[in-house]
């Protein structure tokens, strides 16, 4: 069992998906998928434990018993083990929330398909994370992408399928560029195995083909990661998708793509080539700074809570990219810590929005008026999540920004450090808008009468619980940073080649 942990982590959700489709009833499919997600979480936890017991912090698994580079190899070090824990954990919590508004969009008798799609998305993301083979990343990228497109298309209203379609087009372009990049790497080295690529690439690094391959891979992954200015699909996709889906994808999909980018740059090509020879930081650093400000500024002017959170995600991706671009152990630690932390807060916030849309029927900013009294727990979750987004001490946001500022100061980039703090002020503005509406505005009297809905009540416990698990952990991991910073710094050291 222990020897096969890596493959089980992917195969369990992958096999569970078709099984789930065959289940006869809605509750059965739901309980089944929750159970599967918790099993993957347990497996991920075991992998992390097993990794601690190894000498070099690497576990490898040969699929089909074929040694790499001939067969496909699964290879986990601290970076992927950390991501596995995050992705499976988020899935386990978010699935407990239930289908939310997606439930209404799925036709009667097809509810199992919703859970099948979620399991497929989960399996795809885990598959990307666990593999040590470049082409295998593409295969599982397809699985997770196709599942996410269909999940996003389930949102309310006619615009959801359109948002899913434009994400599909962008995502397919990204996937194709990624595939082209992998193809060029294969052409020049004759191998697809990442570890083998690392050893064989230095011989051909000075060719134009390899530079092109790197460019294609970065742009391809950049589209899926929503790096500024390739983020256009994200606001629509996240705001028209059902809230549960937004919570799941915002907390996992972009995070896994960030990991893929880190893997490409630091493991396959090497930071020295990317940042010292090609100076990719000249391009990526300004872009991440623009993302931090552009995303936050756009968030301030949104009229819909989900859209606001989506634009804030664009800004947060900027912070992660900044950590990567600094190309130091501290910077990478900051980036990876922020991956984890942002997943917790955005996941929790989108779930809170899910509670609101389930009760109020919309997530428009205007409908938040005076909601603090009627949905106290949900609104409190919004506030705590918002504080974490700003980076208030004792929340996870503070931890990420602390390391990010440190990384900037390490390289004497005072201006960058100042900009990080300045952009947090923008977060204060958009979070305050939400707080003000919830607690300091009276509901529009006419609106209540016109809609004729039953009076708004607090969300049911089944929805509040997962929301508060995520929001609560933004506080817990803000106070105890052993797991997040500890693992992330080990991963960063490994990626920078310093050794664990």
């Amino acid at each position, binding site marked *: 069992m222990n020897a*096969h942990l890596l493959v089980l982590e992917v195969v369990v959700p992958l096999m569970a998906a*078709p099984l789930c489709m065959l289940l006869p009833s809605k509750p059965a499919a739901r309980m089944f998928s929750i159970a599967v997600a918790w099993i993957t979480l347990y497996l991920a936890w075991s992998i992390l434990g097993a990794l601690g017991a190894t000498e070099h912090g690497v576990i490898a698994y040969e*699929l089909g018993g*074929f040694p790499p580079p001939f067969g496909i190899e699964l290879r986990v070090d601290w970076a992927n083990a950390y991501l596995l824990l995050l992705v499976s954990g988020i899935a386990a919590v978010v699935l407990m929330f239930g289908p939310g508004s997606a439930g209404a969009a799925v*036709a009667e008798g097809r509810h199992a398909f919703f859970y099948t799609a979620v399991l*497929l998305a989960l399996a795809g993301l885990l598959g990307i994370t666990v593999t040590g083979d470049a082409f295998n990343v593409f295969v599982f990228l397809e699985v997770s992408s196709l599942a996410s497109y*269909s999940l996003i298309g389930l949102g309310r209203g006619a615009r959801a399928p359109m948002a899913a379609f434009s994400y599909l087009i962008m995502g397919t372009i990204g996937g194709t560029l990624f595939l082209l990049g992998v193809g060029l790497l294969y*052409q*020049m080295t004759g191998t697809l195995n990442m570890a083998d690529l690392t050893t064989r690439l230095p011989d051909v690094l000075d060719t134009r*083909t390899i530079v092109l391959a790197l460019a294609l891979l970065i742009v391809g992954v950049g589209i899926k990661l929503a790096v500024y200015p390739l983020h256009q699909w994200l606001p629509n996709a996240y705001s028209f998708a059902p809230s549960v889906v937004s919570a799941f994808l915002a907390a996992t999909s972009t995070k896994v793509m960030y990991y893929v980018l880190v893997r490409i740059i630091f493991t396959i090509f090497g930071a020295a080539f990317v940042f010292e020879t090609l100076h990719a930081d000249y391009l990526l650093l300004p872009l991440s700074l623009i993302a931090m400000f552009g995303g936050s500024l756009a968030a301030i002017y949104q009229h819909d809570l989900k859209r606001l959170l989506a634009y804030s995600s664009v800004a947060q991706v900027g912070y992660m990219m900044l950590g990567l671009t600094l190309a130091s152990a501290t910077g990478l630690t900051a980036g990876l810590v922020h991956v984890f932390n942002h997943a917790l807060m955005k996941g929790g916030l989108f779930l809170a929005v899910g509670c609101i849309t389930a009760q109020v029927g919309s997530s428009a900013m205007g409908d938040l008026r005076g909601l603090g009294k009627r949905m106290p727990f949900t609104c409190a979750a919004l506030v705590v999540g918002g504080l974490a987004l700003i980076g208030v001490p004792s929340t996870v946001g503070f931890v990420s920004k602390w390391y990010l500022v440190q990384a900037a100061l390490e390289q004497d980039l005072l201006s960058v450090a100042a900009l990080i703090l300045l952009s947090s002020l923008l977060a204060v503005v958009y979070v305050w808008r939400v707080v003000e509406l919830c607690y300091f505005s009276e509901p529009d009297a006419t609106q209540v009468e016109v809609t004729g809905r039953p009076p708004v009540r607090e969300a049911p416990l089944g929805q509040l619980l997962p929301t508060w698990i995520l929001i609560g952990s933004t506080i817990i991991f803000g106070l105890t940073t052993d797991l997040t910073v500890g693992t992330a710094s080990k991963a960063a050291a490994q990626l920078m080649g310093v050794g664990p």
Partner: protein
Amino acid sequence: MDFPVEVILFLFLLATALTVALLEDLFAAAMMTGIFSLLSACLFTLMDAVDVAFTEAAVGAGVSTVLFLSTLALTAQREKQHPFTWFPLLLVILTGACLVTGTLDMPHYGDPKAPIHVHVAPEYIAGAERDFGIPNIVTNVLASYRGYDTFGETVVIFTASVGVMLLLGHRRRRPGPAHRPTITPEGAARMRDFAIVRVVSMGVIPLIVLFGLYVQFHGDFGPGGGFQAGVIIGAAVILYGLIFGLSTLQRVVPSPLLETGIALGVLLYGGTGVASLLMGGHYLDYAVFDSDDPKHGRHLGILLVEGGVGIAVTCAMILIFYSFAGRALAREAFDEGGGGQ
């Protein structure tokens, strides 16, 4: 020096692609994409990738053209006029220029010293005979060395059909004459009423299915395998549906049967891997199936996983066709073909 036929085909391909981009008549554009796929299939054949050519011809030229047409039956037939903008064109040209520049340092096409031919390929070629006894190296690599990828690809197809069913499947809210398609049912040809078409297709469909089965089970020796067989059989069934009407077809192969089939296909593939785990090997290590003769065990494993792929792909093709053709009035038009049941 003989003028390579690839060049001509590539020029045709380019011309077709430009035509598709420029055409405003979507019906014609859909037909052109079929031609595009056919040309690609020819190119793949010339590159000795017959397996890929099979799939491209059946899916690209066959099934996806049918899906395009089913969609066009629901939407407008002409493209909306958009003001011309320079930026996308510039972006495309720039990307193309980058790609061309990148290829300059690549090893020449067919160069025997290229890295792809000297690193892993020799082991694949030697291993096919030594460890597997399977003459078709391509099938062998796909099902064994990279069997996990192939499992992933099967799941991709499964995911696609789950997505299509989730989004299109059964949201039949307005089956009435709420929106008229541009292809009106009154004028629609009733393929079933044409004796010649009926008789010819009755003769051809069993042959296509037989050929599909040949491709499935002969995949170890000649070009073929589960994907190719699946799309060929799927295309044959879809052809039946086009001629005899969707409702007739749905009585022959009901949707729930296909849904179960596609899930079972994926489970068969994954289950083969789990079985090898339980028998003490690594995931998808078929050698453990027969401890006395690993070659025999591997044959068995490959047969099972290819079977899983074949079942899943066939069902997925037909299900996707159902979802598209079953929408609103397209269904009506198809049903008219079925003689008004």
